[in-house]
């Protein structure tokens, strides 16, 4: 039997219970999950935990975390909660990796303070609005029934039609609650903060953008605009991958990440 790469526990931050997964040892790596929550069973998580100390909190309203308090309605609100969380855990020299919605959150945290961060990696992130008002940058995932989301998230046809009917009830309830909280934070403006793009220049730590070449939620060109908005940022485009390259191409994802982390460590 293969050893579990990590375990979950509940901690309290600013009065809210947080479901915190932790595994591995070494440089601390903070994972900020996408809109459907954190999947501890994904291959990339085990790969990362074999190399680093991986810390993956579920946002309030996601996973087994408590509900968001009434005042918490935006990713801006959430970012302050995460600054409290980083203080509570006294994490330093973090590599922060944000996936999709988690990339948005990572950027909102980073424009406020990078004091506890060594580097930032944004994977198919949403959260910024670059185009004119008549041009949608980000696919409206709320105009897609939840059971059809995989058709937008994945490039690989075999991943686009999961057997939700076989999902245990508890896992289905968590996914449904995750989606509700995703809506709370992302409904309007659709998956972005109006002024985040004016603040991205404040991110002064090494940053790398990773993108799935066949992403149907946010196109590669949108990722390039993110890259151009953060001074010195690099970018890796991973072929044969949609919105979740870390799931569809874990080997390529880990390789790109390790190259980036290696350059950070060498500084």
């Amino acid at each position: 039997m293969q050893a579990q790469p990590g375990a979950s526990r509940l901690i309290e931050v600013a009065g809210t219970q947080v479901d915190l997964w932790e595994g591995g040892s070494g440089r601390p790596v903070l994972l900020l999950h996408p809109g459907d929550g954190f999947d501890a069973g994904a291959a990339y998580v085990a790969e990362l935990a074999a190399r680093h100390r991986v810390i993956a909190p579920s946002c309030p309203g996601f996973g087994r975390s408590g509900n968001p308090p009434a005042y918490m309605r935006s990713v801006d609100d959430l970012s302050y909660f995460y600054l409290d969380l980083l203080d509570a855990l006294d994490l330093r020299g973090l590599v922060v990796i944000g996936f999709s919605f988690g990339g948005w959150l990572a950027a909102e945290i980073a424009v406020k303070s990078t004091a506890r961060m060594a580097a930032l990696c944004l994977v198919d992130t949403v959260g910024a609005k670059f185009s004119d008002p008549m041009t949608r940058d980000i696919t409206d995932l709320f105009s897609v029934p939840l059971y059809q989301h995989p058709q937008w998230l994945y490039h690989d046809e075999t991943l686009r039609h999961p057997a939700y009917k076989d999902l245990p009830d508890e896992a289905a309830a968590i996914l449904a609650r995750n989606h509700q909280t995703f809506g709370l934070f992302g409904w309007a403006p659709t998956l972005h903060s109006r002024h985040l793009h004016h603040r991205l220049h404040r991110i002064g730590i090494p940053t790398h953008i990773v993108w799935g070449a066949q992403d149907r939620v946010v196109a590669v060109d949108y990722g390039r605009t993110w890259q151009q908005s953060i001074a010195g940022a690099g970018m890796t485009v991973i072929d044969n991958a949609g919105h979740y390259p870390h799931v569809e191409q874990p080997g390529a994802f880990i390789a790109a990440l390790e190259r980036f982390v290696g350059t950070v460590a060498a500084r």
Partner: protein
Amino acid sequence: MQSWYFSEQSYAPAWDDPQRPKVTPPGDLVDPEIAHRLLREYIAECKLADELGMNIMTNEHHATVTCMSVSALMTLAVLATHTRRARLLALGVPIMNRMDPYRVAEEAAYVDVLSRGRLELGLIKGSTFELYMSNANPVTANARYWEAHDLIVTALSKRDGPISYESDNYNYRYLNVIPPSYQRPTPPIWMTTLAPQTAREAAQRGYVIAITAVARAARACFPAYREEYQRVHGRPAPLDRLCYLGQVVVARDEKTAHERARKLLRFNEVSERIDPRFINPPGMMPPAENARLLKSGTTTTHRNRTLPDGTPMSDPPTPREQIINHVLFAGTPDQVYGQIKTFYDSVGGFGNLLVQLGGPMTHDEICDSLRLYANDVMPRLQALTRAQEPVAA
């Protein structure tokens, strides 16, 4: 019993188009000249209802060819000057979706003053598919509904100058409704519901509840309302606090009535043609229910597709099936009265009937049906409620 004429002000000529009828249809499905004729006919039908001694109800929907009324209160403002006696019911103003409660209060007060106190104000949540037009967050919709409700009632009631209001949802530096409403402290307030809990909340406030064509909801909500009203107010709920919406088609013979009803029932069929994308935005249903839907790989509507004994209905349902389900009351005046009385008795009575007509029925068919209803059915329904409740308001 009070009878209220109601038309969705549909644009039925577009119903045969394969385009989806809600949220995403192109505007050029609608010919403005035909729309003009239809809207004038709907206004004329309301004038006729007024002359026949009926009241009038309007509603609103957005981005759909099943309903061209985009503002219940705007339609009533038109009707205020075209009618003399009819009570004018907006059922309702979808304040979960309307982003500006101050504007709702102002428009309500305007209609009330213009009509010299004939407004009845329905403050309803609204259709979930319309959250995609308003962009109001569905996850916080319920809390926002009650906050907007409280704000509108306060704005209409308060007559001694402006208030300020600052919250997460609404911010007003000076909130001051001028002219204030004609009726004091507010026009009578209505709510729609299919859930007993909302019926109880309406009962606490003494509001009218309307059940829209779902018999089992009336059977669940009317007793809940009566029980809560008695508990809070210390007296039985008057019949005029309870309302049912039915599709009511009358003709001199049954065959003609059912032909007309078949046209009207197309409204229900087309109304259900909502793209699955827009039926269930996040947060409208509890996670446990959404988990069930996720596993079944489907979405849902509230429409009933079976007869009371569980037998599946035809597709589309026939007039006879919808009569059995108390969605439709159709036939000769005697038959329609009998059908309504049977349902009335089965739910312990109600004091208001919303009489829905429209869809592809012609203007002449609607006017004929309305005359037969008003002359040969309505007086017997009035006698029915008088007999049950001699002192009903």
